[in-house]
C-alpha cells in the first residue's frame, strides 16, 4: 500500500466518517442557503456545498470543538469562495476608489427627487426594485466585497470574527464592508437609470 493510499484510508475510516456525518449533515440546509446567497446559482451552490463537506471531512480530525462545527463549516465554505478572488482580476474592477467612497445613493435620490409628492422618498425608491434586481446588484460585487457583506448579513459576526473567518486583518474587513455597500448602492442607481425610475443619464 502506498503512503497516499494509507492517508486516503485513514480519512475514509468509517467510524470517523460516521461521526463527521452525524455532526455535520444536520447543517446541510444552512450551508446550502449560505452557498446560494454567495454564489447566486443553485447549481454552483450545490457544487460548493459538496466541495465544503469533502474538504471538511479531510480536516475533521483537527477540529477541537465539535460544538463549533457549524461556524467551522461556514468558514470552510466562505474561504473556498473568498480565496478564489485572489486569483481573479475582478477585485480591481470597481473603478476609482476615492470616487466610490464619495458615492451616496441617499444624496442622488435627494437631488433627483423621482417622486415629488412622496413624503418617504428614499423608502419609495427602494420599493421599486424587484427581488431579481437586488440579487443581480449583489452578484455584481466582486467576491472580495460580496463574501464579507453576505456573511455579515446572514451570520451577523463581529468584525473580528469575520476577519478570523476570512483570514485577513480587521482593517481589510472594514474597508471591504464599506466599499461593498457603496458598490451595491451604485449598482442599484445604475439599475434605476436603466429602468427609468430616475431620469439622470
Amino acid at each position: 500500500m502506498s503512503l497516499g493510499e494509507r492517508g486516503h484510508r485513514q480519512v475514509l475510516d468509517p467510524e470517523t466518517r460516521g461521526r463527521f456525518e452525524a455532526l455535520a449533515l444536520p447543517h446541510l440546509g444552512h450551508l446550502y442557503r449560505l452557498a446560494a446567497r454567495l454564489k447566486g446559482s443553485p447549481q454552483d451552490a450545490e457544487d460548493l456545498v459538496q466541495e465544503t463537506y469533502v474538504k471538511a471531512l479531510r480536516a475533521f480530525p483537527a477540529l477541537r470543538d465539535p460544538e463549533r462545527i457549524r461556524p467551522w463549516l461556514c468558514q470552510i465554505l466562505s474561504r473556498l469562495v473568498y480565496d478564489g478572488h485572489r486569483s481573479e482580476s475582478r477585485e480591481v474592477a470597481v473603478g476609482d476608489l476615492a470616487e466610490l467612497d464619495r458615492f451616496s445613493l441617499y444624496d442622488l435620490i435627494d437631488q433627483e427627487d423621482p417622486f415629488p409628492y412622496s413624503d418617504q422618498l428614499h423608502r419609495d425608491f427602494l420599493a421599486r426594485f424587484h427581488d431579481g434586481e437586488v440579487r443581480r446588484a449583489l452578484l455584481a460585487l466582486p467576491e472580495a466585497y460580496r463574501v464579507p457583506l453576505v456573511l455579515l448579513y446572514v451570520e451577523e459576526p463581529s468584525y473580528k470574527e469575520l476577519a478570523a473567518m476570512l483570514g485577513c486583518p480587521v482593517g481589510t474587513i472594514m474597508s471591504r464592508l464599506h466599499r461593498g455597500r457603496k458598490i451595491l448602492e451604485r449598482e442599484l442607481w445604475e439599475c434605476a437609470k436603466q429602468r427609468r425610475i430616475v431620469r439622470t443619464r
Partner: protein
Amino acid sequence: MKLTCEQAVKQFFAYLDRALSGEEFEDLEAHLEACLNCCDKLAFSRQLDDFVKHHLPDNPVPATLEARVRRALERGPGA
C-alpha cells in the same frame, strides 16, 4: 460638534455593525444628536441593509443534496 458631517458619514457602517466603541462611538452619537441630516442618512443606510437582507435568495434545499454529499464523502477527498 467634534465631527464634521463628512467624518460622521464615514463611520456609519461601522456604527450599524456595532463595531464602534469608546470615543468614536460617543463622538458619532453626539454628532447625530445635533445633525438631523446625518440622522436621515444613517436611517437610510440601515433601511438599505434591511432591504438587501430581505431580498437575499432563500432557495429551498434540493431533496437530492444530502444523498449527493453522502456519496461524495464515501468516495473520499481524493475522488
